[in-house]
């Protein structure tokens, strides 16, 4: 079992749906939502939140800095 659990918070209104975070995530947490934001973009969201390890790969590659990453050690 993973030593860390993670979670991301996406500023969905400012996500441009570029998918770069989707392909950067090593544990396939993220997908684009079938729903769209106010600009018409399919925004990123945690499809499989339990798989997130808080590695921050998604946030590092996001061109619009709309991902915040949280990470917590598992007791």
């Amino acid at each position, binding site marked *: 079992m993973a030593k860390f659990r993670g979670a991301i918070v996406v500023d969905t209104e400012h996500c441009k749906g570029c998918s770069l975070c989707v392909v950067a995530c090593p544990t396939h947490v993220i997908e684009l939502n079938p729903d769209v934001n106010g600009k018409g973009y399919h925004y990123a969201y945690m499809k499989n939140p339990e798989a997130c390890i808080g590695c*921050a790969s998604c946030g590092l590659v996001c061109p619009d800095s709309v991902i915040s990453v949280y990470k917590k050690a598992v007791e």
Partner: protein
Amino acid sequence: MSRMELTDIIKEENLVLKKSALLTDNVMHYCPGCTHGVVHKLIAEVIEELGIQEQTIGISPVGCSVFAYNYIDIDWAEAAHGRAPALATAIRRLHPEKYVFTYQGDGDLASIGCAEIMHACNRGENIVVIFINNAIYGMTGGQMAPTTLLGQVTATTPYGRDAKLNGFPMKITELLAQLDGTCYVTRQTADTPAAVRKTKNAIKKAFQNTRLDKGVSFVEVVGTCNSGWKMTPVDANKWMHEHMFEKYPLGDIKDI
């Protein structure tokens, strides 16, 4: 995972990555997935980490990144096309205590601004140059740049760049490394998390060099222009891997 557990994780004390405080609330006008956004973020993070927000002056170019000044909360000047190195020269000479950098695309730097960057590098100005090589004129609709690869289709090379007709892709970074006025010349990229980290380190080193008065620190970032290349952002990264790095190999070219 239950809702309860998620709220356990999403707490201030567990935060490991968030938007740099130096990035403004303005939404970047760049296309989804554009490399300019990633590099803006890295510059903001470096300036924030070095604590030099009040001492840094950026020069934005003509090109898609013309509005860079809207996004990073520092002092800026805006140069005529290709002339950012001249403006940076003046500003740094008048304010030797400042950190001065230009931010330039490949059309701006290698085409119309070729003479400006050559001579600034040859004079050994104590500035940082951030050079975004996306092998195309993004802003004006995807025309050939000096850096466009052989065979690459652009608006002005509809059958692919032909060396006989259009000359060869210009490795301007290698040319500038030949000049005695440059102290640090490196080529990086910004697609994978590892590459993003490396590019950030290179940008940080370049800014720190400013204080050593050794000359120009030059950071090329090979990037994508998915709109100009007419691909999705993900496919553009793949195309970059398959085609760009052979001509533009990554790594330090000079470090003295």
